[in-house]
């Protein structure tokens, strides 16, 4: 953990120097860098999401076939997802991946912006480039807010400056909500009209996650909230850009391996659509 923290503190300090001692700009650019580094994960997740959308006809076929037998339907759906390498909770993945990053970033921001002597002691020895010592201490104020402290809601008034903490927290929740809505496919009902369980679970997370991030914004530093907002905006833009690309149709090559967006998923076999008829059951 120390290695990651030292890297984050050094990078934040470097960006602070580059951007003329502007810590907010440094955090924003740092966020862009983090999103670029995690971009492959994001791409993989979005491919899974789009593949799930493309599988909808197959899912509907299963729903027709196993109408009335929800247990069997669930088993067959999960089997289908496994064969195609799809994670039905994939829309949550980018948000969950960021958790360890913002834990490290929370510590790094507090260390880099040390506001008290004990915080400053934790900063000593973390700058991987000795020449950066001359930048310490970094300026921790922005628009009247302390970047190392949670937003102060006790001084809310009518002025714009006093409302900034509320605006900041609101933006965290709003951008989280929008990112989730953009990245998750719309839920398709089953043949019996009831919502698909896996998709419904994902939609539930879409309600929980914005609330959770808003709670984080209330508890954690203003600097971390800036990270959340910038990260969510970049996520929204990423998904919109990818959504504008026409997805390649799912292919089933002769080998039997499944192809998703041009990449073969090895080790899986395609189930024949001609399945044996289910055993007759006693009429109730």
């Amino acid at each position, binding site marked *: 953990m120390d290695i990651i923290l030292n890297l984050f503190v050094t990078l934040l300090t470097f960006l602070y120097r580059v951007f003329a001692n502007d810590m907010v700009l440094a955090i924003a650019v740092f966020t862009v860098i983090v999103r670029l580094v995690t971009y492959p994960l994001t791409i993989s997740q979005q491919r899974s999401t789009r593949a799930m959308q493309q599988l909808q006809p197959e899912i509907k076929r299963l729903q027709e076939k196993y109408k009335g037998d*929800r247990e069997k339907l669930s088993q067959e759906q999960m089997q289908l997802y496994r064969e195609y390498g799809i994670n039905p909770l994939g829309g949550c993945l980018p948000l969950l991946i960021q958790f360890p990053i913002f834990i490290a970033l929370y510590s790094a921001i507090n260390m880099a912006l040390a506001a008290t002597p004990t915080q400053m002691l934790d900063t000593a020895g973390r700058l991987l480039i000795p020449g950066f010592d001359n930048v310490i201490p970094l300026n921790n104020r922005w628009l009247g807010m302390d970047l190392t402290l949670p937003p102060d809601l006790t001084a809310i008034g009518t002025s714009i400056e006093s409302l900034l903490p509320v605006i900041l927290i609101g933006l965290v929740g709003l951008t989280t909500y929008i990112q989730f809505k953009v990245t998750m496919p719309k839920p398709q009902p089953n043949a019996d009209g009831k919502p698909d369980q896996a998709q419904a679970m994902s939609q539930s997370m879409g309600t*929980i996650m914005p609330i959770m991030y808003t709670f*984080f914004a209330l508890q954690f530093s203003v600097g971390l909230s800036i990270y959340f907002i910038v990260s969510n905006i970049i996520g929204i833009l990423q998904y919109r850009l990818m959504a504008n690309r026409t997805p390649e149709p799912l292919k089933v090559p002769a080998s039997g391996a499944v192809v998703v967006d041009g990449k073969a998923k090895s080790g899986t076999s395609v189930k024949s659509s001609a399945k044996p008829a289910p055993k007759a059951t006693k009429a109730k």
Partner: protein
Amino acid sequence: MEGAVLKVSRLRPASWSIKKSRFWAVATVAILLIFALTACVGAPTEPNWAELSVLDGNLFVAFSHNLVMLEPNDGSFVNLYNEQGNLRTADNGDPLTWNVSVSGQNMRFYTDPLVTSENTLLALSYDRKLFEIEIDAARLQDSAGRDIAGHTVANAVVDGTRMYVPLTEKDLIAYDVETLDVLWRFETERGVWASPLLVDGILYVASMDHSLYAVNAETGALIWERALEGALAATPTLYNDHLYVGSFARRIYQISLDGEVVQNYATNEWVWSSPVIVDDTLYTADLGGWVYALDLSDGQMRELWKRQAATRAIRPSPLVTQDHVVVGSRDHFVYWLDRATGETVVRHEVPAEILAELLLLEPSETINIAEPLVIVATQARDNLVFAFPADGNSQPSWKFPR
């Protein structure tokens, strides 16, 4: 997942809202995740460390929300006596002790008290308050305290009727000791985390904005400013008409009284402690655990020795005794180094980090102890103060709380 679905369909009544139960399952996971992540980032810590001083022959300790006075020979609380010299007791018969606490108001003390009259102490709280305390009764005159302009983590300095208070955010303020009126305010770019040095009516102020200032103590007017590399977090030391100050630029500077940099010495890590100068030798330490001895006999800083005594930061200034240089570190050890060579002679472990300045108590008419003691304060409230024999050759004589 499949087993869970099976369980739901078998055990739950058909009328159970699966959507609702799923929602609450997700919500529960999210709440648990919030608590887990909150634990991962750690609990808030004290912003500063304890302060040790001597008052009327007793050991005075300021830490967190407590101000206590201890008997130096055994670390027990100092008892309170009435005017007739009788021990004062509480209603239940327990002796009353010198122990001022303001925990109900969430105040914290990290600085030495200031004696402003025969029976009055001024105590500056980190949380922007100043308290007047009756020494005889160990009682706050006004539990609400009086407002000051900012947080303070460094000792204030009193000069007759004026009190100079360094503020953590920025600036140095001069107050009238009696009325607490602001006499003047000297502006800095960043915080002042060190006590100013007052010499012949001039305040030498080391600031986190990388500058050392000379300020007229009466008017607050700037005499000179010397911009150095790196933040300055410790009080400069005056010796033979030169100022010596360590900085976060991994340097110790030798500066003339008119503000010119004469020489600098490179250290391995940030220097936070004030240099200590004994017998023409400057001793200091850095946040990498290194201890340095520099010879000043010819007016220049010449290295005598340097040792990495500790595995972690040494924040407080070294304590110099007849034979040893004593340092306390964040690695939970107190080290006794040979003054001539810097070799570690002995070390003792304590339960927590050492960040506070060490204190040397020597027997005298007012200090009733049998042998010299090195007093060490740690960051642990339940193992706050340790008293070691000055030569370090045995375990602590006492500890507080007992």
